[in-house]
């Protein structure tokens, strides 16, 4: 009877290869026994088979009973932080795309319709991407996290003396910190992805927008962009780990250290090179009519520009180093 074959196939499909054949024979025997009990030597009808299969329940549930344990892509323990981060990232992505739309409209008000279509397209393509990446990261944490607890046999050898102390208020990570950081990174990421020109001095002429004098070197930035985006994505992962952990632990410090070291290396390589910043920043400011060449304002502007690029690098590096040291100090607190 074809329906029986289908049922057995549907169940065994969801089981490990090694058990399939055995369970298939067993199930077939069971179904035939049940049919025989019902009709004796009578004729097998579709109705009887249907009744019996209904009694056995859906193949999915049957397979679940054979497997014993449930399998998760993202298990119950990670589900809540997953939802939180998903919400944060989706909202800030949508917010950032909104900001992009506003900036584009300010820069070029005539093409507002195009900007609007661009916004919709970006929402439609960007949001599934964000969901996909977050799911991937969480699935990896689930997969490797799960394997580790099993290997270490933590559940079996557990003892009350192993209970870690309730984290000191100082050791805890306030939820707002990683959340704000994630929102910030996502917005910066989206702005970078659209145009490096969004970062610059906005020049207005009698309340009408004229142009942006960009901080960054437009010509070379397209080469840098993948690295910048990747780095920001890794930073978001770091903040996610903080949010999941909720407290500073040595493990978290280790992850933070690795990610921050990577960040320091990338930032040093990118930003300190000549090609990163807009080499014509000052002359473009003059052309835009913000300052006049040789004037006092020009010299002040120039020194601010030169110093601020250096200071940005220093602030970024100090921030990353401090993030690691702070974690280490807090993780050691008992």
């Amino acid at each position, binding site marked *: 009877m074809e329906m029986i074959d289908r049922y057995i196939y549907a169940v065994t499909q969801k089981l490990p290869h090694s058990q399939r054949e055995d369970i298939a*024979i067993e199930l077939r025997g*069971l179904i035939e026994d049940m049919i025989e*009990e019902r009709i004796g030597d009578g004729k097998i009808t579709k109705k009887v088979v249907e009744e019996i299969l209904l*009694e056995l329940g859906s193949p999915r549930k*049957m397979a679940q009973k054979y497997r*014993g344990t449930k399998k998760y892509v993202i298990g119950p323990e990670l589900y809540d932080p997953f939802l939180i981060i998903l919400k944060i990232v989706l909202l800030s992505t949508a917010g950032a795309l909104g900001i992009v739309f506003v900036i584009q409209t300010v820069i070029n008000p005539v093409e507002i319709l195009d900007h609007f279509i661009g916004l919709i397209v970006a929402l439609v393509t960007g949001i599934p991407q964000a969901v996909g990446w977050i799911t991937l990261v969480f699935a990896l944490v689930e997969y490797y996290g799960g394997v580790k607890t099993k290997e270490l046999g933590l559940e079996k050898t557990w003892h009350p003396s192993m209970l870690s102390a309730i984290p000191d208020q100082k050791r805890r990570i306030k939820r707002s910190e990683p959340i704000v950081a994630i929102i910030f990174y996502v917005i910066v990421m989206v702005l970078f992805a659209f145009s490096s020109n969004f970062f610059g001095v906005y020049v207005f002429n009698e309340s009408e927008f004229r142009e942006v004098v960009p901080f960054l070197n437009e010509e070379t930035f397209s080469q840098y962009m993948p690295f910048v985006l990747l780095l920001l994505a890794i930073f978001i992962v770091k903040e996610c780990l903080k949010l999941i952990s909720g407290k500073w632990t040595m493990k978290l410090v280790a992850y933070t250290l690795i990610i921050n070291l990577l960040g320091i290396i990338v930032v040093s390589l990118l930003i300190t090179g000549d090609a990163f910043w807009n080499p014509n920043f000052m002359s473009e400011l003059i052309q835009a009519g913000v300052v006049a060449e040789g004037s006092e304002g020009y010299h002040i502007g120039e020194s601010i520009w030169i110093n601020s690029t250096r200071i940005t690098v220093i602030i970024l590096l100090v921030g990353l180093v401090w993030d690691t040291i702070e974690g280490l100090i807090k993780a050691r607190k008992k």
Partner: protein
Amino acid sequence: MLLGVDNGMNEQEHIDKLMQELRRGTITIGVLSQLSSPQYGYSLVTILEEKGIRVEPGTLYPLLRRLEKQGLLDSSWDTNEARPRKYYVLSEMGKKVYEQLCEEWESIVKSLDGLIKKGDNKYGDD
């Protein structure tokens, strides 16, 4: 429906859920008790049902496999009959575990009897 999700269950649903939990453990003892001689899955369903223990095949078959995997049961295929059947029987360890379980069960029954039949119980006269 009453208030909220948690209170949405009616009396019967509560009973069903609690009974399900209660049965889960007792079925294992019931199964072990009937396996001093080899049985295949469906014959076990019939035997247990005759004695008032209803087990769905969909529950029993996976349970038998699990008990075998845990080493409480041994199995062998009989291919002489009309269709191949997998016979299960208590292993040496299974026998010991079953005996121990019986003792535990007796003590649970005794203790619970002491609790629910205490004095003049107005709910139960049996």
